[in-house]
């Protein structure tokens, strides 16, 4: 539609142009001045001055092309600057508002908090460290078990399937799945000595995590910033609590 209207406009302007620049030759000498068309009002379609009674001949205004170009450039600069800053502001607002949805995973503490406040939404992506010495295959089921921790909360994960190369004890993983309440069988499936000790904190809770997918998070020479920050924060919290207890005891 727009294209059509613009093409008709162009056609129209070309017609006008033609009538302006090429008036019929018979009455004109070959070296006529362009403003001589003023003397032939039937060909100049818009100039109202041709109808005015004052017979003053207007001098064609000299246009400073450079100034006009700079003016146009300035106008474009302002338009684009305003548009872009508007769009940028909009995007920043959207990102700030949807901060929660942009998070790829939550820590076990946050997940349990969310699950306790609304038990119908039990699908989560958990991120944390695999507790050392917790990976274990119970004889009673094909699923394997390990414990994920953010140093505050431990949660037992059960998963059946192949693990990625970078899955190691003491390294961070992201698991996707559902928080479910413990059944007695699963609670009791912990076995011998050391493993039982390591996983006892996770088994003392009310829920375990049934994973559908396990992704390893890569951190070869460094802790991932977010988990490290979360763990640091929790470490500080634990220390503070320990100190508070000490002072309370003293």
């Amino acid at each position: 539609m727009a294209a059509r209207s613009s093409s008709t406009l162009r056609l129209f302007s070309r017609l006008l142009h033609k009538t302006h620049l090429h008036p019929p030759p018979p009455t004109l000498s070959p070296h006529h001045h362009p403003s001589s068309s003023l003397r032939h009002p039937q060909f100049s379609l818009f100039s109202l001055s041709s109808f005015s009674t004052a017979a003053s001949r207007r001098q064609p205004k000299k246009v400073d092309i450079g100034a006009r170009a700079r003016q146009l450039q300035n106008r474009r600069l302002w338009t684009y600057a305003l548009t872009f800053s508007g769009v940028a502001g909009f995007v920043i607002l959207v990102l700030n508002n949807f901060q929660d949805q942009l998070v790829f995973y939550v820590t076990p503490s946050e997940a349990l908090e969310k699950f306790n406040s609304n038990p119908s939404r039990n699908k989560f992506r958990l991120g944390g460290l695999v507790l050392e010495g917790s990976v274990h295959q119970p004889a009673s089921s094909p699923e394997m078990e390990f414990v994920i921790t953010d140093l505050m909360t431990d949660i037992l994960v059960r998963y059946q399937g192949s693990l990625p190369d970078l899955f190691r004890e003491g390294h961070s993983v992201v698991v996707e799945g559902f928080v479910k309440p413990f059944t007695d069988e699963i609670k009791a499936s912990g076995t011998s000595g050391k493993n039982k000790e390591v996983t006892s904190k996770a088994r003392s809770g009310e829920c375990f995590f049934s994973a559908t997918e396990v992704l390893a998070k890569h951190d070869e020479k460094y802790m991932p910033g977010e988990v490290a920050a979360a763990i640091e924060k929790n470490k500080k919290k634990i220390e503070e609590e320990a100190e508070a207890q000490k002072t309370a005891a003293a």
Partner: protein
Amino acid sequence: MSKTRNYAQILIGSWLFLTAMAIYLSLWVAPLDFQQGGNSRILYVHVPVAWMSILVYIVTAINTFLFLLTKHPLFLRSSGTGIEMGAFFTLFTLVTGGFWGRPMWGTFWVWDARLTSVFILLFIYLGALCFQKLSVELASILICVGLIDIPIIKFSVNWWNTLHQPGSISRFGTSIHVSMLIPILSNFANFLFLTCLLFVIEIRLLILSFLESSLTEEIEAREGSLRA
């Protein structure tokens, strides 16, 4: 003309040398990573290509902005070249990243903030490629508006928790060992050199076409008729 051929020989020769050096460094010299094994070699291509996709985008955005201001054909042509190369680099980033992620993370693709923002970058490039055929102004505006995506890509790993690892190289130093940093940098130099070479060729073609354009002929014809 012979001078040009000499320059071309020197440039292409040095590019071939850079490529050979980069391949040699990343396949034979660099040590195996202690966790990833041979898979870390994918990163020697993935990281430089990802840098290039960002760098080319910034250059292209500057070009398109200057085009919108001045409407000069040189800016238009160089931004078009940038869009094509940037789309290629971004696609290459996503593909190599997927092939690295499959054995390491356990998945080709996840919708975390970093991967999604790079995916959006690819779509901005492809959209600009398509819009160029409709209207170059529209494509240029899309590229300029899409510049917002660049800081989001850069800082997504710091702002939100993602599966993608945070940047290893920052102002405060690197967490990549020097022996593994050298192949990354040599690959980066290689891609940078290739990109500059292609830019020069494209712009040179355009300048040459000015000399032979119908516009020049028209102007000359008009001046000739005036003189006559």
